[in-house]
């Protein structure tokens, strides 16, 4: 008898676990704590939800950057949780939800690839309404019907007149349709450690330092000088990668064949030399070994990066709210100069997903966050970001009140403005993300002496073909 009871119990447990598998995943994430937040904020909020549109606006993203921008700057938007912006909020009577999938190992794109093609058939509250993309793979989504043309949302060319041209070029498809908008521009500069500059170069004045990094030959000489005093010029080889890869004369893929540009080869040669001399490391970007150089007493002379690198990656900014995290950024010990070559790095674009049931709210967010000069100026002031609005940036460049605290009171916006105008995107391809990633990883083996250059190159080709079976080498 006892056995029978037990076996029935076991069978029951198995059945129950099966049933649980089936029903999982439908539970609403952001909880039902939708206490009626007052429909605060004027006009913007009231017209957020159009007639007969969805009650939930889903945004796909890979970190909390956009969620924080929304929380801090979007007119009429009420965040549920002031400390964790990704918990979402209310825009008028539309609930905004963020789904964060980290971009590591392509997880973010895999997630989009699974969701977007089936978006039209998804349940109303589950539909993706907006998704964010990065420059490296923007073309992949822009060239397919999963992203809606901006014109379909009712946003006109005239409204975008103040945006930098390159930010529009990246997200324009083969037929000339603009399919995404960005609030930021990402021209990059060389961000250097003031203390090390003073000690080794005798001055931390940006103009003086620029002379020591004016081109790659002087850059290498400076690296020798720094090495003598025990400093590394960059944290890892990958720091300078973007500067080379943005100045290529041919794209990664030409007629379905993988192509390694001469300038990329130049990066390999310079990096190998520097690694051998101990002037830089081989850690991956974003690793702890890489970000160690942000600390106050670190031995890294410079990083290459756009404005977001300073405010988003290099440590807390001393804004009276943040606590001292021991970073050089908090202490204001950095300065910026143009560096050997102009480049851009990253940037986030907002795309409207085909099949969205909230086109009005999506258009509203896009307008406010990327074209409203007041909102954008606010972002520069509060977050030290470089925003996608020419008149605002040019005015800010000459205004001392826009000085960056992490840069010890320097105002680098003029440099960024100049850089943004010069960005040339004629050689991007939809395979950039996979190629850049695989190339850096493959070359790491060469730099560390585990493989010859040719072996590393073969490994790179192999890795790319695994990712993109349609390519050959």
């Amino acid at each position, binding site marked *: 008898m006892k056995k029978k009871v037990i*076996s029935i119990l076991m*069978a029951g447990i*198995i*059945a129950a676990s*099966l049933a649980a598998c089936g029903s999982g995943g439908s539970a609403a994430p952001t909880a039902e704590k939708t206490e009626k937040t007052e429909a605060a904020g004027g006009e913007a909020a009231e017209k957020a939800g159009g007639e007969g549109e969805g009650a939930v606006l889903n945004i796909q993203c890979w970190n909390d950057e956009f969620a924080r921008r929304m929380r801090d700057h979007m007119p009429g938007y009420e965040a549920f949780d002031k400390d964790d912006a990704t918990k979402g909020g209310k825009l008028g009577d539309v609930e905004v939800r963020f789904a964060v999938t980290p971009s590591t*190992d*392509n997880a973010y*794109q*895999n997630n989009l*690839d699974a969701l*977007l*093609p089936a978006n039209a058939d998804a349940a109303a509250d589950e539909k993706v309404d907006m998704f964010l993309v990065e420059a490296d793979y923007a073309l*992949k*989504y822009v060239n*397919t019907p*999963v992203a809606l043309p901006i014109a379909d949302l009712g946003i006109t060319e005239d409204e975008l007149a103040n945006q930098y041209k390159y930010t529009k070029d990246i997200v324009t498809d083969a037929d000339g349709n603009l399919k995404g908008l960005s609030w930021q521009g990402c021209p990059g500069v060389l961000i250097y450690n003031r203390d090390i500059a003073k000690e080794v170069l005798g001055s931390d004045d940006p103009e003086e330092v620029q002379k020591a990094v004016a081109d790659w030959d002087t850059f290498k000489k400076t690296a020798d000088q720094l090495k003598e005093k025990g400093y590394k010029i960059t944290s890892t080889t990958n720091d300078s990668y973007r500067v080379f890869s943005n100045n290529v004369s041919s794209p990664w893929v030409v007629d379905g064949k993988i192509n390694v540009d001469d300038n990329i080869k130049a990066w390999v040669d310079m990096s190998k030399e520097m690694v051998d001399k101990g002037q830089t*490391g*081989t*850690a*991956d970007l974003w*690793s*702890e*070994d890489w970000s*160690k150089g942000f600390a106050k007493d670190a031995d890294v002379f410079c990083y290459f990066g756009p404005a977001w690198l300073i405010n988003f990656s290099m440590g807390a900014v001393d804004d009276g709210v943040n606590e001292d995290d021991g970073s050089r950024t908090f202490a204001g010990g950095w300065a910026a100069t143009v560096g050997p070559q102009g480049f851009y790095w990253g940037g986030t674009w907002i795309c409207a997903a085909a099949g969205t049931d909230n086109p009005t709210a999506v258009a509203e967010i896009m307008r406010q966050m990327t074209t409203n000069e007041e909102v954008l100026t606010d972002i520069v002031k509060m977050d030290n970001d470089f925003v996608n609005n020419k008149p605002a940036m040019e005015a800010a460049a000459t205004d001392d009140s826009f000085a960056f605290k992490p840069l010890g009171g320097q105002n680098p916006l003029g440099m960024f403005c100049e850089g943004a105008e010069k960005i040339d995107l004629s050689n991007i391809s*939809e*395979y950039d993300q*996979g190629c850049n990633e695989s190339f850096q*990883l493959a070359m*790491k*083996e060469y730099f*560390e002496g*585990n*493989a010859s250059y040719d*072996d590393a190159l073969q*490994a790179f080709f*192999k*890795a790319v073909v*695994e*990712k*993109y*079976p*349609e390519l050959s080498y």
Partner: protein
Amino acid sequence: MKKKKTGNALRHNRWGYFFLIPFFVVFVIFQLIPLVTTIYNSFFEHYFKNGLTEVGPNLVGLENYKTLLASGDILIYLKNTMIMWVMGFVPQIIISLLLAAWFSDPSLRLKGKKFFQSVIYLPNLIMASAFSMLFFALFAETGPINSLLMQIGLISAPYKFLSHTMSARALVAFMTCLMWFGNTTILLLAGMLGIDQSLYEAAEVDGASSTQIFFRITLPILRPILLYVVITSLIGGLQLFDVPQILTNGQGGPNRTTMTLIMYLNKHLYSKNYGIGGALSVILFFITGVLSIIVFRINTRSQK
């Protein structure tokens, strides 16, 4: 129990079939159908261009197998997998046999046996990915192991554990060993406790040393369990994935020398390459089958 051939017993037996249903449902849904579709897919060219645009399915026959076997990469990854398995399994089985022998020997009068039997199993309770993350942090260039070694003066500059083939493989092997030796110990212990005590007593009366008892009595009688342990471990070893995947950030570095077969399979999922992925799975299926048969043969033949 003797079977009675009455109608009552037959009707009673029906319950046996009912209780088997959950197993067969799970088996068919999660094992049989995937198995068949995998084999089916392996004959097609079917992938997603840049993850988004579908290509195929086009019937290509054995083309996928040709592509895979022609490149010769499979052999390299098979070798990596086997090296790491052996490196982890040999110490693991030695430690497990030793521990099981000690735990099962009443003459040792070990205290806190139950406690230690639970403790050695604990590493297996941690998720492999969490365990790998932990080791990744411990053995990073700026991690605690390096600073420890530098402080006691063993090395002057940080050693990049994950940039050298031997150390990276050794780390993987060490982790799998650490995770599974408790499990193996428990299995062997169960086998050893099942051995008739009178055999040991007789041996002792005949004046056999404890080494002789172990090699002449315990091991031969333990053979079926040992065989089971070797085969399950071999199959598990061939499917080694989570530990090296996370430890090397999915790259199988340095130079793909810690890349296992399943990690290679995972690489093809980037483009949702069902064709090549299917073919690779089928090859892996055969390798596992062949190796298992070999191990099985060796063990049963020498028993005669």
